[in-house]
């Protein structure tokens, strides 16, 4: 145990802040990420994160706290993406990619201009890869509040969101404003991404968004259970990542420490790969002649459509 919990771990202020922010972040990303994967929005989520980078760089340039930059850019991008629309999947991917390229180009510019003005080196690094150990305590309330609000929005919309993810037409027929729900969801996604951006960097935030959710959906078909598993997996990766990053100060090169973002990403991937190790017997046999399609099966079908493994209710 001593090996894992190096001296001073729990008494360190920055570590406690990191753990707190990390918890909010992991739970938020875990829950919201489940929908991202179900809606097949992995690329969109990642693009949102990269565009958030532009915001963070811009904030850095004008001297604002990066979180607000991430958030502003994220929400703007979310609105833009919803405006581009959901039809013609591939066309949307290309459009997203082009916007992403332009946004990253702008980020490059902001970082360059910013580095001319200030004397801080390594600014690019922290914007891109996060700085969970140097979060100033006065931003913590804002961070926590944003996360909780985003979680609340998604929880309130959960059932409707599920319906619109699986069958937008059916949702529309039932009087749901699919557009509005989509925007609300993407805004929550932007918040989640911004939180992650502060902690582990915008470009890596996708790991906490997609990884635990994809892992959870491979393991269970129930949406509620998937969100729980996803949040727990994200939490485990984040806490362990923070602990290991703290410990790594004692690893070579001494006194330097490895970045938290690396650990979190690596652990998330390990979790995902572990989900591939499953005994064959657990896979339910496909029964195309069953006409009973319960609510869990709806998620299963969506999960299949999202490419995360076998369904129990599907047309042959």
């Amino acid at each position: 145990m001593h090996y894992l919990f190096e001296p001073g771990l729990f008494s360190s202020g920055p570590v406690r802040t990191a753990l707190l922010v990390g918890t909010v972040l992991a739970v938020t990303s875990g829950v919201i990420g489940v929908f991202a994967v179900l809606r097949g929005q992995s690329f969109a989520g990642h693009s949102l994160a990269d565009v958030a980078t532009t915001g963070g760089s811009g904030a850095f340039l004008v001297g604002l706290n990066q979180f607000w930059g991430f958030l502003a850019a994220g929400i703007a991008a979310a609105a833009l993406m919803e405006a581009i629309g959901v039809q013609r999947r591939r066309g949307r991917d290309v459009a997203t990619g082009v916007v992403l390229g332009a946004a990253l180009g702008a980020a490059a510019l902001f970082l360059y201009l910013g580095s001319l003005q200030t004397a801080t080196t390594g600014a690019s690094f922290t914007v891109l890869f996060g700085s969970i150990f140097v979060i100033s305590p006065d931003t913590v309330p804002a961070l926590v509040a944003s996360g909780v609000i985003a979680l609340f929005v998604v929880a309130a919309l959960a059932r409707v969101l599920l319906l619109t993810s699986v069958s937008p037409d059916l949702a529309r027929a039932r009087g749901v404003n699919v557009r509005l729900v989509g925007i609300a969801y993407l805004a929550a996604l932007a918040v989640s991404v911004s939180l992650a951006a502060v902690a582990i960097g915008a470009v890596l935030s996708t790991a906490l968004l997609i990884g635990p959710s994809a892992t959870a959906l491979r393991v269970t078909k129930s949406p509620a259970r998937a969100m729980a598993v996803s949040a727990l997996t994200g939490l485990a990766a984040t806490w362990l990542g923070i602990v290991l990053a703290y410990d790594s100060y004692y690893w070579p090169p001494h006194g330097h420490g490895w970045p938290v973002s690396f650990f979190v990403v690596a652990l998330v991937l390990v979790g995902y790969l572990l989900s591939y190790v499953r005994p064959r017997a657990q896979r339910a046999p496909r029964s195309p002649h069953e006409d009973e399609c319960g609510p869990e099966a709806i998620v299963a079908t969506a999960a299949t459509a999202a490419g995360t493994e076998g369904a129990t209710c599907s047309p042959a």
Partner: protein
Amino acid sequence: MQEVQKTATVTDSSLAAEKPRTAPADLLRLEGIGVRLGGRSVLGDVSFSLGKGEFTGIIGPNGAGKTTLLRVILGLIEPSGGRVLVDGAPLHRKTLHRKTLRNKNKAAIGYVPQKLVIDPDMPLRARDVVSLGLDGHRLGFGFPSRQRRALVEAALADVGADGYADARVGELSGGEQQRVLIAHALISRPKLLLLDEPLANLDLRSEQEIVAVLGKLAREHEISVLLSAHDMNPLLGVMDRIVYVANGHAASGPTDEVVTSAGLTELYGHHVDVVRVHGRVLVVAGE
């Protein structure tokens, strides 16, 4: 005349002993095909044959195994029992099968998938898709030649698609795309056209047009046509024979002989009524 071939437990040896009473040199012959997927029997003991220039429909409800059957014929799925004979020669297992396909059966069977995997912006014209049917499997660039262009034009004309040869294939309607896909399969001069649910997702008029195109190909060009569909009614005018698939089994023969209340009841395993109204056939499940 063809008999109705019901499903029966036949072994290979008994089939070999039996002299086929059909037309000489069947183009395609399935004997006792069974398929297991995921530990379950999806198809059991399916047998039928197809001669030159004949139009056969594989009809059945969704999920009955029509696509599975087509994939067996294409050699993409290995049957757990029985065998497939193309032009008298058996379709081998995977590795051998690829060679066989490449040498002989490639020209023998032309496959028309249900649709193209593209979006409207894709830089691919109708004539490019058809051209791929000629040599899409060969390496290299494929420089334009007069001969190739002529072949492409001819194939497009055969299906009535020459009017939009230069249009982006992603912008074409369902019926137009279907014609282009048929031309794509046609250009390699196959003996048998295999179509996977060509009429699904088509409006009524396109449906009729495609059926007419296929009927013409069968009659005038003596190309055999085998397609799957869940509704036999658009095909009643052109179908020579039906293979009705339900409940994992199949019955084949002339439509009027196979599609009867008694016959389908036996196939489905529960009571089914066949109703004929104004020349249309309705299969209605009992209580």
